[in-house]
C-alpha cells in the first residue's frame, strides 16, 4: 500500500512540476520563433 502511495505522490508531484517546466519551455521556444 505505501509503495502505491509513494508512486502516486511522486507521479503527481514530480509529474506536475515536469509538465509545467515542459510547458514553459515550449512557450518560450514558440515566443522566440
Amino acid at each position, binding site marked *: 500500500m505505501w509503495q502505491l502511495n509513494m508512486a502516486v505522490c511522486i507521479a503527481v508531484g514530480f509529474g506536475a512540476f515536469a509538465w509545467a*517546466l515542459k510547458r514553459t519551455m515550449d512557450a518560450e521556444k514558440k515566443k522566440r520563433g
Partner: protein
Amino acid sequence: MAEIKQGGDQFASRWGLIATVLGMAVGTGNIWRFPREVASNNGGAFILICFLALFIWAVPLICAESVFGKKTRMANAGAFKVLLGDNWTWVGAWCAMVCVMLGCYYVVVLGWVMKYLSLIFTGFLTQVQAGGTELTSEVWKNFATTPPAVEAWMWFVAAVLIAAAIISRGVQGGIEKANKIMIPSVFILLAILLVRVLMLPGAWKGLEYMYHVELVDFARPNVWLAAFTQAAWSSGAGWGMFHVYFVYAAKDEDIMLNAFTATFGDMVAAMLAGMVVLPAVFALAPDPMAVMKSGANGLTFVNLTNLFAHTTGGFLMAVLFFIALFSAALSSVIAMVELGCRNLMDMGFSRPKATVFVTAFFLIVGSWSALDNGIFENQDMVWGVALLMVGLFYSIAAVKFGVEKLWKEDIEPCSDMHVKWMWTIIKFFPIEFALVWGWWVYQSMTWYPGEWFKFWPLQKYAYTPGSMVVEWTILAVILFILNGAMAKNLVHANKLD
C-alpha cells in the same frame, strides 16, 4: 530573453523569474518543516491532503498575488490603493509588514544554519564522535536557546548583511543571478543526498513511514489543519512575496503556469527533503519516533548533526545538507527584504536607501528574536498565523475588484494553462479561512485556560490568542494612522515603458 525597459526593473528572462519565485518558495519550510510535519502527522494521508491544499489554496492565492503585482506594477500597499482606493492602503501595508516581521525572525534561522556550516568545517563532527551525542545538544543549548544568545545574534547580523548586499544590486544583478545558481543547486544537492541516504541499511523504513496511509487520518481535523498550514508556509501563498516579484515580470508573463510551476516545484523540494531526512533518522537513530518528536530545531541542528557524525561519509552529507538549507533559506530571506524595499520604493525611496532602511529594521526588530528564543517562538506564532489573515485580505480584494474581470483581462490572455476553476476557487477562501483560523483560536484557548487573553511577558504567553491580537492590532493602528501619508506618497510604480 526579454529586454530591460528603460525606467524600471525587470527580470531578464522567464527562467530568471521562475528561479526567483522558486527560491522564494523553497526554504526551511521544505527542508526542515515538511519532514517534521510528515513525521508528526503519521505520513501518507498528510501528504495527500497537502496535494489537495496546493490545488484549492496555494495556486489560487499565488495567482491573486501575481496578478495584483503585474497589473499595478506596485508592491502590496500601492496595489491595494490602486485597485481598491486610498482607504485600503493600510490593509496592503499590513500585509507587507506581516512578511517583514516574519522575515525579522526568519533571518535568525539563516544565522543558525551559517553557524552549523562553520561548525561542520571546523571539525565538529569529529568532536561529536569522540564526545558523544550529548555534545550536540549542549552546543545547541548554549548557542541558541540560552538568553542572551550573543553568538546567535552575531550570526544573525551576518545573515542580514549578506541578504542586503544581494538585494542592493537590484533585480538582474543580484536577485535573479543569485537564484539562478542557488535553486538548481538545492535540487541537485537534495538528489545527491537522497541517493546516499537510501544506501544506508534500514533507510527504506523511513520511506515506508513517510508514505504509509491510515484511512483514519483523513477523519482527523488536526491532520487537515497541519497539511493546509504546511502548504501555505511552504509554497509562500499569502505571504505577498509573489506579488512583489510580479511587479518586475514581463507584460506577457504567464501568471497561472508560473504559479503552478512554483507550487509544485516547492512540493518536489519538500518531498525530496522528506525522503532524505526520514530515511536518515530511521536508518541511524536507535529510537526514530522519539527523535521525530524532539521538536523543530532539534531535528535539524541536533539530531541530524548526530546522525552525520556517526555515519560513513557523514562529513560530505552534512556539508551538502547545510549548504542546501543555507541556499534555500537565503533565497527566501532575499524575497522578504525585497518586499520591504519595493514597498518603500513605491513611496519614492531609491533602492540603496530602501535597502539601508529595511536592513536597519531587520537588525533592530530581529535582534530580539536572535537574543531570546522565547521571543523567537512568540514571533513565529504571531506572524505565522497572520499569514492566514493576509491570504484572506487578498481573497477579499480579488472578489471586490472582480474575480471574473481579473481572469479575462489579466490571467487568461497570456496563459498557456487555461484551468479557470483553479483561479475562481479563490472566492471560497473566506470559508477555508474561517474553518482553519477558527479551529486554531479554539485550540489555542485551551492551551492557556483562564489566561488565553494575556500577552505579557511575551516569553510566558508566547502562544496566547491575546498576544497575537495585541501585536496585530498595534501594527494595524500604526498603519491606519499613517494611511493618508502612505496613500499620498505611493505614486512611484515600476513603469516598464
